[in-house]
């Protein structure tokens, strides 16, 4: 009897809830697989998908977003061995699941912690509440490929933003597998879009894109590139998260910063009277 021939997986992009190849028809060989090499056009398509998803996702109830994120953690846990087979250490997968669950719980709590009533000196009802900034473009750290990616995506989307993320170029397989997790978690298409390939190609397009509201440069290690991206981002005054230090410890409690950096505070006034 001959040995069974395995069915191999094609590693593609994740845009608008679908798994297209790069429109450019290009791929690059990495981790012994041909992985889509995203083009500038793919980046623009991903922004269009992310923008289209904003209304539904930002408008969903916080409870619903929390449920969906928790569902994603369940799916992630279920694929633990698959990530390990891709070379992600087991404890990194565990940490990624735990991080995802931690953020999921913030969905219906952050507005209470980060907003509230303001005691103005007059007969007015006055309340401040956080709102998502909109479309976030992010560069995930090269390493840890899964925990770093999760730590960038979850805080952006839990509050109602949608995200276009450039995954680790050297270890992209975990990102594509994470996309499969998200695609089976009731997460609406377009809320998370994942590009594989060279950030030198996609990130400048995202940084300069006029329909992107914020850019997270966490994974950019080249200081000159980071400066260039921040300069491009100034054109429409994107909110900017600067690169993480090279020695950043991804295992520690991330705090609220990554969420609050991608929020707007809206304050509403109304007179009191009879």
């Amino acid at each position, binding site marked *: 009897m001959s040995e069974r021939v395995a069915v191999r997986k094609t590693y593609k992009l994740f845009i608008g809830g679908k798994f297209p190849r790069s429109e450019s028809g290009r791929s690059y060989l990495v981790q012994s697989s041909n992985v889509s090499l995203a083009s500038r056009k793919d980046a623009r398509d991903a922004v269009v998908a992310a923008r289209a998803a904003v209304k539904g996702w930002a408008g969903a109830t916080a409870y619903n977003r929390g449920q969906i994120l928790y569902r994603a953690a369940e799916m992630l846990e279920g694929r633990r061995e698959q990530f390990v087979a891709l070379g992600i250490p087991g404890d990194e997968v565990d940490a990624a699941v735990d991080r995802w669950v931690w953020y999921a719980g913030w969905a219906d709590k952050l507005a209470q912690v980060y907003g509230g009533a*303001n005691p103005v*000196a007059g007969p007015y009802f*006055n309340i401040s509440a956080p709102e998502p900034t909109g479309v976030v473009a992010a560069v995930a750290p090269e390493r840890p490929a899964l925990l770093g990616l999760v730590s960038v995506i979850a805080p952006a989307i839990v509050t109602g933003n949608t995200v276009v993320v450039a995954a680790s170029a050297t270890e992209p397989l975990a990102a594509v597998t994470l996309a499969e997790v998200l695609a089976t978690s009731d997460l609406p298409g377009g809320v998370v879009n994942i590009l594989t390939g060279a950030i030198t190609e996609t990130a400048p397009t995202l940084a300069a894109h006029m329909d992107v509201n914020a850019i997270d440069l966490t994974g950019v290690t080249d200081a000159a590139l980071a400066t260039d991206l*921040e300069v491009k981002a100034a054109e429409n*005054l994107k909110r900017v998260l*600067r690169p993480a230090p090279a020695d950043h410890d991804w295992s520690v409690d991330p*705090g609220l910063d990554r969420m609050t950096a991608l929020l707007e505070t809206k*304050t*509403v006034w109304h007179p009191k009277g009879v």
Partner: protein
Amino acid sequence: MFEYAPAPESRSVVDLKPSYGLFIDGTFVDPTDGGSFKSINPASEEVLAEVAEAGAQDVERAVRAARKAYDKVWGPMPGRDRAKYLYRIARLIQERSRELAVLESLDNGKPIRESRDVDLPLVAAHFFYYAGWADKLEHAGFGANPRPIGVAAQVIPWNFPLLMLAWKIAPALAAGNTVVLKPAETTPLTALLFAEICQQADLPAGVVNILTGAGDTGRTLVEHAGVDKVAFTGSTDVGRAIARSVAGTSKKLTLELGGKAANIVFDDAPIDQAVEGIVNGIFFNQGHVCCAGSRLLVQENVADRVLESLKRRMAQLRVGDPLDKNTDVGAINSAAQLERIRELSDAGSAEGAERWSPPCDLPDRGFWFAPTIFTGVTQAHRIAREEIFGPVLSVLTFRTPAEAVEKANNTPYGLSAGIWTDKGSRILWMADRLRAGVVWANTFNKFDPTSPFGGYKESGYGREGGRHGLEGYLNV
């Protein structure tokens, strides 16, 4: 219009010196490599004082003084003592409020009624509010041990000179930073009087440094390598340039920029109240307000009624001497700003909108612009897209709430918005959908030190006021 006898506020309370130096390290000094310029009264074009223009070496001196004060005095000082200095400043402002209000109106052109009843009370309240935070930062929700950032470079505009100074300096000092502040070149005088108040409060030298000057001074200051934090209020174009200039540095940046707010009036709104809100929204402070309600969106079926009432009300506005207590609309702040307002208004007419102003005698000297509305404005018109920063209202109509939201959000700005309706659920539905940092429902242009203020999109980032206002001055 009903005739009132003139009721001028006396300017004798203000003791102006012929010339002012820079306030560096606790004393007034002459510029090392700068020059000087004159600050004028925009209502009369009279020269008020000659003011130093800081050069690069002066910026260097001021940043160094701020650094030394941060390292040696203000940074190590217990929060409760920082609080007491800020409370002192708040009290001194209250005690000298008449003097400050008159000087503000002289230098800026705004009516004394506003500088006295709006600007100054808010300035004092802002210092009072943030004073109380100085020894409670660990309870502000930014972690157990929030730390100051260091030296803050702050550049402020001319529309609310002293109030913008308070918005910048009070939270910065409460959080433990030291500052170098540059007031606008057309309105430097109240900042210099504030420097005297810092001396009177015995605020340690170097904690507050005031550099007068124009754009070059501001640019040199925000680009200085010794600065840890940049805070800017002003135009979106300058904000963009600053965002570029801090790229690649570790400087923390907050920006409060332009706006083109929609003031939305539904058919069930109490019309008289809404008209008061429209007038307040666009003619308060001559329309020199970044959150001004400069686009009136009125529901089509009440547009005629609202406009008729608005025109009747506008005919009652008293335009003239800022120091007259009856004045509603004062002088335009500068010749350059007047030119900008004229240019955009001419574009409004040229693009086909219909222009209307009440009959209105304007003084011969100084910079003046009559309250103006444009009807028949479309979303493509420049006067519906660009910030005019003057007493000019663009009127558009809508039929459904969804259309109102669509039009209100159709702008790169997102600072503020107004909603006028009797229906509570509609207010909340609209407020959820308007992409703006401040939403005033059945009111407009209300400010409070406890209430966060700041924009979405190209109106900038960060918030000033409230607990949120501390975040831009802390490493959390």
